[in-house]
Structure formats: structure tokens, C-alpha cells
């Protein structure tokens, strides 16, 4: 599905992601864990084309993504939910989701999106900026799903969200995967959420993957050690 090989990303002289290799299989959910500043956001942003990569390749269904601009990557099947959600705050909930329709050419929001997130249907005409953090997170996911991605990237979706809702989000993400048959890559610091949602756990440390295990074999102790300072 998504194949990342010998991939590196740098800000000027400082290399943040170095020679990374990672495969995301069809229908798989992987969680990339790492402490603050280990390069999770950098990886995600470069995959969607917000920051340029330095070397290596990223292919989605055998299509090379690195020369593409952000909007072309979305058309190729990448969906992105950024850290901090970044919804369009002065636009209504409905309009926010509609921006995601651009690459599909559709005009009407498919009803199954509202079925996944009933709150958004209730709040259709509210401005995005006036939603709560959790609601904004749902909106950001709905907006990304509107472009009908085959790979969904989520950057720390649990940030600033209360535990009970985090549990629900794990359920929702799995539901989305099962319903739409897509692959999901989520970056995280909350181990319990990662164990809950993912099929495979990866740990990123200074831009390198230092651990890659199926969730059944994941040992909480070892991973916690990576996550504590």
C-alpha cells in the first residue's frame, strides 16, 4: 500500500528523518509512537507534501508521491488530519467538510460521513472555530475522509482529548477502516490508545524507527521506556 523507502526529511541543515523504511499494508492500522520532538509531525507533514523531502521515495499503490504537490497527493489517495486539527475556523462545519470534496469533484457530502459523526450533522451550520476540541477533531477526520483517501494519516489525534472520548475515537477509526477498507497511520504519545487501535506498533526515535512489532507481541514495559524521558 504505502511504501516508504530510504526516506529523509530535513529543515535546512538539520536532518529530522533519516533513511526511514516503513511499509503500511492494505487495511492495516499502524501507530507510530515517539516522544516530543522525535519527528512524528515532520514525517506526517512531509508525506502530505507540506514540507519537502530530502531523499528516498514514497509510493502509494506503486505511484511515486515525492514529486507531487499536496493537492495531487490528496487526489492520489492520501488523507491528512494534522496535529492541532487546523480546521477552517471561520467556515461552517458543512463548508469545512466540503473543502475535502474538492479532489473528488463531488458536490454533496456523502451521508455516511454524517453517520460516522452524528455531532457534525447537528452542528452543520456552526462555525468550525466554535466547536469543542473533540468535535473539531471529528470534523478534521470527516474533512479528510471526504476526499475518499486510501491511506489516512492522523497526527496525534488524541492530543487534548479526554480519556472516554479517546476510547470512542479508537472504535471510530477501526470502524472507518472496516467500512472503507483503507489503511491508517496514526502518530501517538498515548500508549493505551495505540494498543487499542493499532495492528502494529512502531517507535520513532530521532527520526529512525527503532521498534516495529505486531500489537500482540508489543511489550508495554519496553515501549513505555522509549516514551519516558
Amino acid at each position, binding site marked *: 500500500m504505502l511504501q516508504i523507502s530510504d526516506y529523509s526529511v530535513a529543515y535546512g541543515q538539520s536532518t529530522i528523518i533519516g533513511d526511514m523504511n516503513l511499509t503500511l499494508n492494505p487495511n492495516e492500522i499502524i501507530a507510530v509512537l515517539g516522544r516530543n520532538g522525535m519527528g512524528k509531525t515532520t514525517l506526517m507533514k512531509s508525506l*502530505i*507534501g*507540506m514540507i519537502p523531502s530530502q531523499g528516498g521515495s514514497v509510493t502509494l499503490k506503486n505511484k511515486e508521491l515525492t514529486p507531487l*504537490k*499536496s*493537492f495531487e497527493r*490528496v*487526489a492520489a489517495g492520501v488523507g*491528512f488530519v*494534522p496535529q492541532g486539527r*487546523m480546521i*477552517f*475556523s*471561520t*467556515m461552517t462545519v458543512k*463548508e469545512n467538510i*466540503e*473543502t*475535502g470534496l*474538492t*479532489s*473528488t469533484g463531488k*458536490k454533496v457530502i456523502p451521508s455516511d460521513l454524517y453517520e460516522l459523526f452524528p455531532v457534525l450533522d447537528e452542528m452543520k451550520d456552526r*462555525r468550525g*472555530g*466554535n466547536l469543542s476540541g473533540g468535535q473539531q477533531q471529528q470534523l478534521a477526520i470527516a*474533512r*479528510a475522509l*471526504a*476526499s475518499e483517501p486510501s491511506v489516512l494519516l492522523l497526527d496525534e489525534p488524541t492530543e487534548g482529548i479526554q480519556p472516554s472520548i479517546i476510547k470512542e475515537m479508537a472504535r471510530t477509526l477501526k470502524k472507518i477502516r472496516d467500512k472503507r477498507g483503507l489503511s491508517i497511520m496514526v502518530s501517538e504519545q498515548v500508549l493505551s490508545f495505540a494498543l487499542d487501535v493499532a495492528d502494529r506498533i512502531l517507535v520513532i526515535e530521532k527520526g529512525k524507527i527503532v521498534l516495529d512489532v505486531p500489537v500482540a507481541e508489543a511489550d508495554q514495559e519496553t515501549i513505555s521506556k522509549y516514551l519516558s524521558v
Partner: protein
Amino acid sequence: MFAEYTASELTSIFAMQGFAGLILFSVFVLMALGLAIIFGQMGVINMAHGEFMILGAYVTYLVSHLFADYMPESLYNSYFLIAMVLAFFVAGALGAFVEWAMIRHLYKRPLDTLLATWGLSLIMQQTYRTVFGAREVGVVLPDWLMGSVQLTDMIEIPINGIFVMILTVVITIGVAIMMQRSRLGKQTRAVVQNRPMAAAVGINTEKVDRLTFALGCGIAGIAGSAFTMIGSTGPTSGQLYIVDTFLVVVFGGAASLLGTVASAFTISQAQSTMEFFLSGSMAKVLTLLTVVGILMLRPEGLFTLKIRR
């Protein structure tokens, strides 16, 4: 300064100056609309905006001549509508070309775009001078736009002025609806809010930039069409309006259409009424001072959206 007039004279002065102000208001609104859309979208201050307006005026002038020379006289009455549409597309097409050839290479460099568009304005002025001559040209108004409506024996209102105002209202509402409802409008607003994020949800931001720039210039073209109804067109006529238009945009708050309209109204009325009693430059100075004063109190302009960011 009011002492030497009687009460009824004052009423009619205010009414007629107020109306003259409304025509000025129309030109301001149409100019400011385009300028604000472009500025809001890409942070580019288009110094050549006045020249795009004049392009629309020249297009209108040409069309009126084509109609006068080659079309049956009965059709002359309708030249204006065709001229207006043509002015929109010609100015818009030139705008798209300019964005492609020049502006897009200068994004994030505000001073350079300022200089580049200023240079462009000089080039356009010179081109007009070469093609149309330095003398001002005007159009012959069709019959139905001639004359005026006599309200009282002292107040009369020219029909062409009324027409231009109605036109402005229609276009403003049209643009407002477009920005609210159309796909381009929504994409534009998304890009304005957060450019990288807009791209990351699938919006081709470069295409949106080009279309927005073209739209802004096209509206300036329409403003030029309207302008021929109330003034004569010369190579540098656009210059007279550009500073005032900036004032309107800044005063209104670039993000708000309503703000633009309200500020165009305030500034045009203030100028037009004061011009009668004071000299023109004194009126300008007073307007400017007031605007600066208000902007010190409300740096974001008259209207801002109340929203958590």
C-alpha cells in the same frame, strides 16, 4: 460655513452632494471589492488595480464605437451590457496572465509585489497613451441613460448615476453570493484561512490564486465600464481612485465584504459632502485623519468576525 445658506438650500445641497457621493461610492465599492478579494487571498496589494479599471473603461469605449459605426442605431441602446461583460473578461484574462507571468513568482515578498505591480501600472498607462492617445475619451450615453429625475425644484438626480448604483448593488450581491455559495468561493476562503492546510485537503491553491486574481481584475474591469457613465477616460484616470480605494479596503477590514461596503459609503459620503463646503484637498485631509483615527482604535478595520481562532 453653513451660515450663508438657508435651511432648504442646505437640504438640497446635502441631498445632491449625497447623491454625487453615491456614484463615487459605486466606483469605490467595485474597485475595493476586487482589491480586497486579491489582498485577502494572497496578501498582494495590486498597485495596477486602477489601470485594470481603466482597461474596462477603454473596452467599453471601443464597444460603444463599434456599435455606433457598424451596428444599426436601434441596437446602440444595448451596447453597455455587452461592453460590461467584455470588460469583465478582458480585464480578467489580463489579470490571469499577469498572475501567471509575474505575481506568482513574488508571493511572500510584499515589497517586491508592490514595486512590480506599480511598474505594471506604468506600463499599462504608457500602453493606453500609445494606443488611445493622451487625450481623454468618453462614450455617448444611450438615450435611456440621459437626463435626470426631478425630485423637487431644487433636487435633481441623473439617471446614469442611478443606473450605476443599481449595477453596483447587483454586482456586490452577486460577488457576496459567489463567495458564500460557490465552490471557488469556499476554496478561496479555505486558502485565505490556512494555505498549507487547504492544499492538504486537496485544493489546488495555485489555481485558486489565479482565478481569484482574475476575478478581482475582472470586477475592476466592470468598475471601469461603470466609470465611463460618470467620467471621461484617460490613461491616468485610474490613478485618481487607487489611493482612495486602498483607504476603503483598510478602513473596512479586508476580510469583510460588508465592511468594504460600509467603509466605501462612509468615505465617499464624507468626501462628497465636505467637498462642497471646503476645498477638495481639505476634504481629503479630513477624511484621511478620521480614518487614521478610527484605525488607531480598531486596527483590524470596521468589521471583524467574532470567532475563536
